[in-house]
């Protein structure tokens, strides 16, 4: 509630993309290009066991035979996969720093500028403690509250560390939700993923704090391929957040991440994203290609997963966080706000695959397009033969600002069970002149009025975010639409 006012303040004071700076540090990079040697290089850097290198190699071989997908409603010049770096780590962080004292002060300064607390005594937004894993280019540079969490048996660490310290868990679950052969970008990720977060919540544990990972692309011409794996054991509960930013550059950079969530019986994962990668400039030069595969498997009875995403950044976004509702009575939710401005393109949505009895899913997707941007909601709801009495409710709302942008809704529904119910509602609207005038008559400037009205339009989604992020997200909504009216 407080946040809207803050939004208005922020909109006035913050320049368009305040995260666009570059940190000047020495980096340890793999040679340019992609081949088996590069993959061996990454694996060696991470001191990985041979099973993992083998898995990477299988993925790479598979990838060589794959075709880049072209079905999404996005257009971009062909990516030269040989013209990028696949590994870049701050020199000091080579083997992973032992404590914050070992982290390059330049990097600490970077996170300070970004407002990410790496010292445990700092609290984010003063609300509640948040444990942070900070991933800088290809490596995790710091993880906070590890010890406090481990007292509860919770594991929260960089995935490269989990490979060493908890190989049984990683081996059992890695690729179990998104197999290495899944799709072009996920397969590429399986071959070259560098770091990301690993979370394990033991049976019956309700995680006492928000867990979050903050991704930062810094090096130029480098792809970021992080991999996140979260396992919620029976009856456990966790809320996880991820945030992302990158410097402003004229070149396009590829971010191809994979997130796998394993939700066992009666467990509950809430996964929130505020994606604010550099979107490129007004003319569409530069920006991140955000091609991400996110999937959750509800494996037990009554398991629940909820995806909430606020997508404001990136030149192109291609992602469909999905739920495989296998356990009876399991619940999948997808709440999404996708904002595109200038020349941004977003093709995003979800897949709800109902396998078990009495499973339910809910999709609330809000697309806001301004400038010359294009936004597509693409969603699949699939009721499999055994999904007795399962139900889905989908609501897709698009809001257009200006005359040159586009919004598209592409729902796919497949029902193979007579007792399953699927409901779909869609609307497209514009910010009405009388709404803008009403706000302005009350003294609210046109830009603030747009931020206010759009925040209202997104309310059902934004209120799903944890408090700490809701404030940030509301501000972002305002900032990312700057210059879209008038």
């Amino acid at each position, binding site marked *: 509630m407080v946040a809207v006012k803050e939004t208005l303040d922020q909109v006035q004071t913050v320049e368009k993309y305040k995260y666009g700076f570059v940190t000047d540090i020495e980096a340890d990079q793999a040679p340019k290009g992609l081949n088996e040697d590069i993959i061996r290089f990454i694996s060696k850097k991470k001191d990985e066991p041979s099973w993992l290198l083998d898995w990477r190699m299988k993925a790479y071989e598979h990838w060589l035979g794959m075709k880049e997908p072209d079905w999404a409603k996005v257009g971009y010049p062909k990516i030269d996969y040989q013209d990028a770096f696949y590994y870049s780590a701050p020199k000091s962080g080579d083997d992973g720093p032992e404590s914050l004292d070992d982290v390059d002060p330049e990097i600490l300064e970077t996170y300070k500028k970004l407002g990410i607390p790496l010292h445990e005594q700092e609290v984010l937004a003063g609300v509640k403690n948040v444990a942070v894993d900070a991933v800088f280019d290809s490596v995790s540079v710091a993880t906070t509250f590890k010890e406090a969490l481990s007292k509860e048996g919770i594991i929260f660490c960089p995935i490269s560390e989990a490979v060493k310290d908890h190989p049984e868990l990683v081996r059992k679950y890695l690729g179990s939700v998104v197999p290495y052969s899944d799709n072009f970008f996920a397969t590429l990720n399986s071959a070259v993923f560098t770091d990301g977060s690993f979370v394990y919540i033991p049976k019956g544990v309700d995680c006492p704090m928000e867990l979050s990972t903050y991704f930062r692309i810094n090096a130029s011409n480098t792809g970021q391929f992080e991999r996140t794996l979260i396992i919620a054991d029976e009856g456990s509960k966790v809320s996880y957040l991820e945030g992302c930013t990158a410097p402003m550059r004229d070149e396009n950079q590829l971010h191809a991440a994979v997130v796998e969530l394993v939700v066992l019986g009666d467990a509950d994962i809430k996964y929130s994203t505020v994606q604010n990668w550099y979107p490129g400039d007004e003319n569409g030069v530069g920006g991140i290609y955000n091609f991400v595969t996110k999937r959750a498997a509800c494996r037990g009875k009554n398991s629940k997963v909820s995806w909430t995403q606020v997508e404001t950044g990136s030149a192109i976004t291609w992602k469909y966080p999905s739920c495989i509702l296998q356990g009876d009575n399991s619940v999948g939710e997808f709440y999404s706000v996708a904002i595109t401005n200038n020349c941004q393109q977003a093709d995003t949505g979800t897949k709800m695959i109902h396998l078990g009895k009495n499973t339910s899913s809910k999709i609330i997707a809000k697309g806001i397009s301004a400038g010359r941007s294009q936004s597509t909601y693409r969603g699949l709801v699939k009721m499999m033969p055994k999904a007795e009495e399962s139900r889905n409710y989908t609501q897709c709302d698009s809001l257009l600002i200006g005359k040159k942008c586009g919004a598209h809704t592409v729902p796919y529904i497949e029902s193979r069970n007579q007792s399953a119910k699927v409901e779909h509602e869609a609307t497209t609207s514009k910010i009405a002149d009388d709404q803008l005038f009403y706000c302005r*008559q009350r003294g609210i400037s046109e830009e603030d009025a747009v931020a206010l009205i759009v925040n*209202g339009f997104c309310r059902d989604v934004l209120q799903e975010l944890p408090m700490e992020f809701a404030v940030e997200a509301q501000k972002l909504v305002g900032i990312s639409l700057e210059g879209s009216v008038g």
Partner: protein
Amino acid sequence: MLEINNLHVNVGETQILKGLNLKINSGEVHAIMGPNGAGKSTLSYVLSGRAGYEVTEGTISYQGKNLLDMEPEKRAGEGIFLAFQYPVEIPGVSTMNFLKAAVNSVRKYRGDKEFDAMEFLKFVREQTKILNISDDMLKRAVNVGFSGGEKKRAEVLQMAVLDPILAVLDETDSGLDVDALRIVGEGVTALRSSKRSMLVITHYQRLLDYIIPDVVHVLSSGKIVDTGDKNLALELEKNGYEIYSEAVA
């Protein structure tokens, strides 16, 4: 404080106001009455700066400044408030948030310190009591699902918190039941002061029993065709506007 001279206004190709003159001094309450389609709401929109209302001739001076030069939000900052005949819905934005955004924008413009959440709550509560507006209503989205009467009371609440210098009330009495009319009438009257002028557009004398006007005008076919004291309103209620339509024709 407000001086309108020979105002001509077009909406699209159609001329709606055809040489309107009006002068309001500080602290005065003027009522405007007139038949449907006479141009009353048009006048309110021109005063508040709505796009699509083209001034083809004439001037409006407000506190010595050229009002027509100002953007709507600037006019609001300068103290112009319009209670809309048809208040606009803004889904998903709570009335409380909206009020706070508005009040703080205007305070900022006027060089006053902006309210934080707690201060604002206290400030609003003082006003909601008088207007019989529940906290529940403040939590609901702006005008969404409000009854006709609730909308009008919410407009008066906005007027109260924005502390205008010139308040234009466009049919704030329409759609009100007897009790709500009294609440709104008394609420507006409580806001009368030597520093605040009001322009009250209405079809009915009954509102003017509460808000006793200093001057009553008749607006017909885009012009002020008659001006008098509060008794003029009583006559109009009895005789209607027929005599004026002859005069114009």
